């Protein structure tokens, strides 16, 4: 029962991120979502393995990455998100529609999920969809990075299904990779900012045919 | 076989200008004149043989070779055509193609000789000659097709000899149509009145005459003689196609053949005196008309079942 609550909370936080416009709040919301996320392995089946997972997510996604992002914001000195591709209201509506699609797909696929709750797969799908929508609809580079991270959270939810199966080494490798990915994105955002004076990807469109 | 070839050529060389004489006589007679004597063409050619030559500076050896080649080609083409009882001395399977292309060779040399002189009048004649002869050749081949289908053979003399009285009942109309279209080709090839006026001297209207404008002396003689022989040979072929005399005994064949030739000459004279020369852009229509006649003939043959 606690697991379902956590899943719903993660999905709602995702939607709130989608709706928010100020970068600072978005980073804090992401940190909150990662916090709830790190709790879920313990809820599914507590054990030595789960503890390591929780600690890993806590260190990386709750402390390290948000600080990195906020450092990037201060460094790049942008506060407010410019109008997204289709306007806030419509993005939220689109988010809702995509969640509907996610639920419909996971229902149609009737994937055999064993002892964990049947809510897990749809929620994971919808968080991935929300992250993707965030990635697609925003112009600021930092927001796109946050969208990418929300999508990673969704993928992490799926990983819960096979918690004790995959060896630890692979788990850590995955987390490490995500971290390095975000690190490089941060560096590139830094370059964008130096070159274009603003971290918005609006003027990143002269490579076309 | 050599003697028969020589005999054949002698007949052609001796008698062909006579044909022109008869035509000239009939044309004069129809307008109430006595007209030039029958042997007038012989006198003209004889006179030319005694005259000197004037060659233009721009011409090359082709100008002098063309009359010779055209005369020789026409002479040699006579070998394939039977004259009444005189059978063709050298027939072979597929000689109609050589027959037609020999005339092509003669025409080709006459055209480039005309272009050789470098004058605009000869060029005019040459281009018209080239245009009309293309269509005439097509009609000629269509007639040969009809004859070939009738006689199932490609030897000119056999194609013609197959045309006996009995074949007229079944394929009468086809042979008639072939004959008429062949007559029109005859007129076009020998520059007779409806296509081109042999007697005129207005360069802009001439076709054959203007091509030989610059020729003189022996060259002009060869050309005149060649055109006379060409008329004689094609006329002989016309008579062979139209008149079904091949079934008769040889003596009768000769009589009927030569009578046919005379009638042809007179006919030519009549046609020339009662028709005027066509405008140049109407000549293709005339030849296309001849082509349609021949085509109808072919259809008749096909329908009647070959």
């Amino acid at each position: 029962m606690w697991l379902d609550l956590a899943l719903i909370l993660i999905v709602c936080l995702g939607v709130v991120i989608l709706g928010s416009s100020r970068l600072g709040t978005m980073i804090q919301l992401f940190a909150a979502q990662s916090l709830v996320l790190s709790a879920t392995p313990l809820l599914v089946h507590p054990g030595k393995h789960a503890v390591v997972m929780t600690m890993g997510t806590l260190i990386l996604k709750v402390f390290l990455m948000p600080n990195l992002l906020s450092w990037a914001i201060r460094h790049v000195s942008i506060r407010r998100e410019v109008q997204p591709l289709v306007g806030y209201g419509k993005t939220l509506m689109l988010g809702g529609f995509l969640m509907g699609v996610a639920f419909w797909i996971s229902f149609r696929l009737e994937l055999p999920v064993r002892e964990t709750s049947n809510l897990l797969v749809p929620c994971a799908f919808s968080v991935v969809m929300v992250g993707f929508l965030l990635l697609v609809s925003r112009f600021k580079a930092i927001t796109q990075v946050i969208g990418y991270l929300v999508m990673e959270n969704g993928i992490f939810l799926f990983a819960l299904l096979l918690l004790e199966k995959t060896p630890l080494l692979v788990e850590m490798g995955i987390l490490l990779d995500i971290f390095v990915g975000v690190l490089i994105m941060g560096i590139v955002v830094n370059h964008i900012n130096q070159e274009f004076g603003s971290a918005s990807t609006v003027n990143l469109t002269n490579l076309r045919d | 076989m050599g003697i028969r070839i020589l005999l054949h050529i002698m007949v052609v060389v001796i008698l062909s200008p006579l044909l022109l004489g008869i035509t000239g006589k009939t044309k004069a007679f129809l307008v109430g004149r006595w007209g030039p004597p029958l042997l007038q063409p012989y006198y003209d050619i004889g006179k030319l043989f005694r005259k000197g030559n004037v060659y233009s500076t721009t011409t090359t050896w082709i100008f002098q070779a063309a009359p010779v080649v055209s005369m020789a080609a026409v002479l040699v083409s006579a070998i394939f055509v039977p004259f009444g009882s005189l059978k063709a001395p050298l027939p072979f399977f597929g000689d109609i193609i050589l027959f037609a292309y020999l005339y092509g060779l003669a025409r080709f040399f006459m055209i480039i000789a005309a272009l050789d002189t470098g004058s605009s009048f000869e060029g005019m004649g040459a281009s018209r000659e080239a245009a009309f002869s293309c269509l005439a050749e097509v009609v000629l081949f269509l007639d040969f097709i009809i004859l070939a289908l009738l006689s199932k053979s490609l030897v000119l003399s056999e194609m013609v000899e197959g045309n006996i009285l009995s074949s007229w009942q079944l394929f009468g109309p086809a042979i008639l149509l072939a004959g008429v279209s062949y007559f029109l080709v005859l007129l076009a090839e020998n520059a007779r009145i409806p296509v081109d006026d042999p007697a005129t001297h207005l360069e802009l209207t001439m076709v054959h005459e203007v091509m030989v404008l610059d020729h003189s002396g022996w060259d002009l003689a060869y050309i005149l003689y060649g055109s006379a022989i060409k008329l004689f040979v094609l006329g002989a072929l016309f008579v062979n196609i139209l008149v079904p005399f091949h079934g008769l005994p040889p003596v009768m064949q000769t009589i009927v053949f030569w009578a046919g030739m005379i009638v042809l000459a007179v006919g030519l004279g009549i046609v020339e005196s009662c028709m005027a020369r066509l405008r140049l852009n109407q000549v293709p229509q005339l030849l296309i008309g001849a082509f349609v006649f021949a085509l109808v003939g072919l259809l008749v043959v096909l329908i009647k079942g070959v």
Partner: protein
Amino acid sequence: MELFLLAGFPALMAAVVFLLRQDRLRKIILFLTSLVHLFVTISFWQGPRDVQFNPFLGFDAASQLVLTLVSILFFVVSIYLIGYLKEKRRRSNGIFMGCLLCLLSTMTLVTMSRHMGLLWIAIASTTLLSAPLINYYRKPRGIEATWKYLLISSLGIALGLLGTLFLAISAAPVKTIFLADILDNAALLSPSWLKLSVIFLLVGYGTKMGLAPMHTWKPDAYGEAPAPVGALMSGAVTACAFLAVCRVAQICFHAGLQRFVSPIFILLGILSMGIAAIFIMGQKDFNRMLGYSSVEHMGILALGIGLGGGAVWASLFHAVNNAFAKGLIFLVSGNLYQGFRSKKVENIQGVIHRFPVTGIFLILGFIVLIGFPPFGIFYSELLILKEAVTAQRYLAAFFYVLFLSVIFFGYSGVILRMALGRPTEDTPVTAKKENFFMIAPLVILLGVLFFSGVFVPGPFYDLLDEASALLGGR
């Protein structure tokens, strides 16, 4: 010991290169490591096909094929770099060289990994490592290309991760996702999770490989990247991605999902060739055109795998030839850029008469890319068409031939217009003579192409046969 030499040694050298100061020393280290890597790979040819270092890392026929291809290409690019990076630059090329060496080790890791999770990590790291390589010149267009490359490939990697997770879920009874275990008891995998994972894996690794709808980063990345990086990425990195896709196909073949997955492959193949045909026609920028040519050749590879039977052998053969052909044409584009200082097609003219050697190699590259007989791509394209015709997939064959001819229009329009004719007065031609280091790699690549296309050596044939047998071809 060989394991260290192959995978670990380059990474170590990368660290050394980061610390060094002088550029010249870095280039020599790069050259030496690639030489060592090449020798070790060649040494594996005599040995048995299936080598198992430990449960995670090992070789089979397909991976040895791709590894040889990667190391030859890397060696050639390292020689080219000596000539390419000759002129002075403000910023030292430490990061550049370091990333290159790490890239080599991660690519080796991809070929050697026997665990699907490890395979994903290796693929993800190749992506992240190649991002700074694209951004070498620090120009606005380069940064934009890098950003787009990063964003799209990280989305691809995320989908790949999802796919691997779904694979793990479907392989729950098997307890591990080691390739060997999955293949042995493929019947136990739950079909619906497996299908889901195959779709996500195909889209994920398809993005890395540059198949049609996910190809959009390719023209930008290859258009802006420096030529040697372009050569390496289009030749080696896509080959590794292709190996990953082959692993997925291998799993499907063993799990009996052949009828499920081949329509997807054929769709991807035909779509990629269609997109490439549209964009190569009348392309203004030479390197972008090479990007689209890479999309086209990846499409042919996917089509080959999809058709099965002899076409699998042909697509592996095609992968090898394509890698060397791409290397050749990209290095030639590097020479062109050094000579003409521009990538635009209209102000590169009469290359044959201005730089004869580069001109000849440009035309030879064109001949190889187009698939003219003496070289291998002709045979592989013919074999794929043969398989399409014998399998009576006439629609696919029709589109395949249609797009091949339209692409031929595009190539000859662009390359022949550049190669022939005379350099017009206003072409900004620097008075540079072609230096040795930028020609030698072209000669080596041409030699390898000649041997891989015309006089195909015996052992290479057997390797191809075993690899295609592995993937379910004849």
